[in-house]
């Protein structure tokens, strides 16, 4: 079994187990960018799962701190896969027809720089609990 013999060992161990609790720590933190991926039947059929996997892996690879959650049908079944991105302190924005290419564009432009890209679905509803 691995023994921790020095500070370096401890740090290495921490690094290696980081993945296991990272998702939890992000949930506790405030002020992170949030991405909700619509994962109802229509979303899954249109490839939402691949998009979510891709975005999770890519944002991490690019050193961005983003919380990913799954959500139910957002009602835009015509435009699946759809994702909702909330930058800290900003209103949520929904993107439709998100394939891997679009996902990459959203990561690079909107999530990184706050620059809007095509494919935004205008908000056409109100929620009652606000």
């Amino acid at each position: 079994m691995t023994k921790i013999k020095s500070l370096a060992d401890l740090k290495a161990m921490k690094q290696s187990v980081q993945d296991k609790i990272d998702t939890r720590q992000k949930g506790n933190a405030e002020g992170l960018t949030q991405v909700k991926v619509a994962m109802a039947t229509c979303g899954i059929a249109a490839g939402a799962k691949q998009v979510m996997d891709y975005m999770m892996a890519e944002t991490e690879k690019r050193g961005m701190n983003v919380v990913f959650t799954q959500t139910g049908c957002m009602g835009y079944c015509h435009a699946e896969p759809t994702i909702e991105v909330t930058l800290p302190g900003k209103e949520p924005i929904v993107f439709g027809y998100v394939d891997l290419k679009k996902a990459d564009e959203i990561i690079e432009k909107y999530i990184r720089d706050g620059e809007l890209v095509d494919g935004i679905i205008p908000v056409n509803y109100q929620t009652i609990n606000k």
Partner: protein
Amino acid sequence: MAKFKMHLLVCGGTGCHASKSQEIADNLKSSLKDKGLENEVQVILTGCFGFCEKGPIVKVMPDNTFYTEVKPQDAADIVAEHVIKGRKVTRLLYTDPENKQHVADSKHMGFYKKQLRIALRNCGFIDPQNIEEYIGADGYSALAKCLGEMTPAQVINEIKLSGLRGRGGGGFPTGLKWEIASKNHADQKYVVCNADEGDPGAFMDRSILEGDPHTVLEAMIINGYAIGATKGLVYIRAEYPLAINRLVIAINQAREYGLLGEDILGSGFNFDIEIRYGAGAFVCGEETALIHSMEGQRGEPTFKPPFPAESGYNNKPTNVNNVETYANIPIIINKGANWFNKIGTEKSKGTKVFALAGQINNVGLIEVPMGITLREIIYEIGGGIKGGREFKAVQTGGPSGGCLTKKHLDAPIDYDNLIAVGSMMGSGGMVVMDDTSCMVAIAKFYLEFTVEESCGKCTPCRVGNKRLYEILEKITKGNGTMEDLDNLRNLGRVIKDTALCGLGQTSPNPILSTIENFYDEYVEHIKDKKCRAGVCKSLMQYVIDPVQCVGCTACARNCPVNAIKGEKKMPHIIDQELCIKCGACIEKCKFNAISIQ
């Protein structure tokens, strides 16, 4: 390794464990496996979330969805709906008692809004049986910082500067305690963790050990380094099996990973920890009694001085701290004394964990900054009194403490304020009472506890408390006199002044504080022979209203002592001489004809 997208945290504290949380976790795992998601979603059995009232709890991360009162058969729904479809299982969400709406996540729950979790930071967050999870959550980094960058004197200084005071009840400054122990020289010194939590209704320390045992171990090693001790002992009561189990696992893992034993982190510092079991005696929470118990002697206190810091376990310098105190240490080292001492009030820094119990909606474990008011705790975090009844009092500090009443609702809670109003912080039990509680009976309950738990070594405690109890017994039976009230007060003060240890010195507190705050109720019991809360049975009479009674004979047939007489279809009468006040007649009467007077 693939990264888990979602984490399902299942509460594994004693309360939820008893309501089958292990089975819930197993069912979640098997449902996930059925759907082929075992590599995407992680199920973790954690420590206590604190919201025991609504347990078992399942929390979904990262979206903080908080499911309450989950049953093993709900697991499949959580997986099919929440995990796969992203739809929250509404029926399991917490319902806000005020607007009756479901609350989607824990960040919007009144119970958590005012809380600040420092000592409980990892409870309900990591798997307590896995050292790697603790390391991932910054665990043992405070130890590394101490051993690598700080001298023992610097460590002590940091703790002194933080203003941390003992969380076991007395509130002695922790840094000062360490400093005294560090200045006494000997070939062997000891660090002792006091996990002999004995107050009725208190479970703070148990929850920390169950939910985050490594924090306590890490703090003990730091303590050892600071005072120059190489041996640590945890004194825990044998009646905490789950906590012991997780502590044993934690100690073994820490040894395996080289964080306990010789040459820790290459620093040359050696430290090891052993467990000592207590048989569950309240007096063994007192540090000298605790030390004697660990030595294999009778669990009886001895006179201080000498303090344990000079001559403790095996007559060697010993530093004793409580579990919750230790749980604060690693984070103080990591974030700095100046972070910690900004939380709380002038003389009481940081937070305090309280076990909320009694007539309150949200029974559970909470951690709040010092200086919070009782009103905030009871009405905002606690969700108010059960059944919308009226708040009467809250007992803090267990058998050593006193009552706080309506007039104390807005006083900030800290060590000194509680003492000023005749109570004490104690280890953190908070028993909330409404108008159905009789204060004389409450005082009697706590006295009964101390009489039972007194070790009998000194006369004031052994004999004095017994006499106090007898006087209370007399009052609740309706035979009290006004003279008895003076006797209670005088005897109480004498016991406080003359008893040997903390147990005896504080045992009259429940009586003195209830006489002070609820004098009228005592007088009512004595002069009017009445108990307004309807608790003292000897002072109650069951009476049948002859107008309402239709003579159905249901009560008479169910009376176990045949105390109810009367002709069929004629009003019945209860013979007060025979009546044992069991209440069976009230339950059977369909016409609301029987009342208590």
